[in-house]
């Protein structure tokens, strides 16, 4: 593994391992100071948010998640992230009151989501694009220097259970088979 933390990978830059601030960038060309723990862009309101939550809880030193820049139209990924932290998810795994198009958290257990909600405070700077202002806010949170949340939480990605066990490994898929010429038909037909 490249880093001790952040097992879910993604498009991010790791800075100071023991810093307390992580920064989420929404459509903004901005490089936060290296005093932060990690920063990176958020694009999607489902898988993108899952990765942020899973990676953040793997580093207990992160206590503040600063979300800045312009939210993405339609996806509303930043606002959906804020909603996840504020409200959690419903029985259908939908982020409660999230404004995004498809705001579902399907690969993280409830326990991991609760840990995310408890471990960090989300600083909602959606709509703020003034880089000096963002840096000032980042520094003000770094100065708070809170204690670590404790042990890292390594979230396990929920994997769908394989529906059918196949003996025939030549098959393309559990639903279809193909003969040696390439004729595809439904399995069992």
């Amino acid at each position, binding site marked *: 593994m490249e880093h001790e933390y952040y097992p879910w990978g993604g498009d991010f830059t790791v800075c100071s391992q023991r810093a307390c601030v992580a920064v989420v960038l929404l459509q903004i060309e901005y490089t936060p100071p290296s005093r932060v723990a990690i920063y990176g862009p958020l694009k999607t309101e489902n898988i993108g948010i899952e990765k942020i939550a899973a990676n953040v809880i793997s580093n207990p030193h992160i206590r503040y998640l600063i979300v800045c820049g312009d939210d993405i*139209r339609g996806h509303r990924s930043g606002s959906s992230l804020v909603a996840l932290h504020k409200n959690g998810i419903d029985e259908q795994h939908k982020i409660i009151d999230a404004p995004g198009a498809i705001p*579902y958290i399907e690969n993280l257990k409830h326990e991991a989501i609760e840990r995310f909600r408890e471990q960090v405070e989300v600083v909602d700077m959606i709509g703020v694009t003034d880089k000096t202002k963002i840096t000032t806010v980042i520094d003000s949170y770094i100065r708070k220097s809170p204690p670590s949340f404790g042990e890292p939480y390594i979230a396990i990605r929920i994997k*769908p259970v394989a529906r059918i066990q196949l003996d025939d490994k030549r098959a393309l898929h559990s*639903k279809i088979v193909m003969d040696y010429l*390439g004729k*595809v038909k*439904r399995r069992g037909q």
Partner: protein
Amino acid sequence: MFSFTKKQEILDISGIQIGGQPGLHPTVLFGGVFFKGKPDFDQAETHIQKMLSLSKKTGNPAIPDFFIRKEEYIEDIIHFITQVLPSNHPFSIDITDPAIKIKTLEHLHVKNLLPRTIYNSIHIGITDEERQALKQHTPEMVIIVAFNPKDTSPDGKIEVLENGAHLTNSGLLDIAHKLNIKKTLVDTAALAPGENSGASIAAIPVIKEEYGLPTGCAIHNVVEKSLWLNDMDAARKTVDAGSNINIPLFGGDFAIFGPVENADLVFPLIAWQDILISEYTENYFGISPTETHPRRKLFK
């Protein structure tokens, strides 16, 4: 190279045919027309004309896919569509925000453009208001995106088409049917590397054999998200264009290939691939390509 047992639907929009057995029709290519900020229509026109001329040369139908990000641009973009495209040429609209989708449908209705419109797209995030708007102003053709955040495998994609995977009250195909949408294409929802990116390709023959519907995807999105290619500019462009050959190779009918600027790479590549496939499928399955197929146009 495949042939399907299930009867394959061939859908027509303004004379462009999508679907059928592999090797019958040329792969349909959707080129994205993106505008950063205020639309620069001059530049867009140059790229679209270039794509249309490549389409004429190769035989692969070209469909410009217009991204509309802000309500204030709807009218201008629709006016541009009426000016830049040959009369009756189909186009698609790619919009994320449901409110802008609804407004755009209204405008397309007023301009009598719905018979040429491919609506990109219906997915599990469909809102009640969007359903109402689609019922009122029904586009000729709709792309259904089989994205299932619970299960990214081909099975998960079938689940959202079939029953909505408990994320919508019924399956996406049923939703489209109830909205009186007669022509649907299935987009197998390509996801980033690390998120089962290969499943969007593997799902193509599964969905075609299951439903017989024209199927494809925007596989180039996977390349866009392959960050390790960032410092290999020339290779990145080649990989981006090259990723599209997976679609016809796995029996798919259309490729949403990314920015229209890439048409000069993508059209010859897919025409070449279509010829390759057609030679095999005609020999073994007796599928003769149509008159507009690249094999007829380019390989005399």
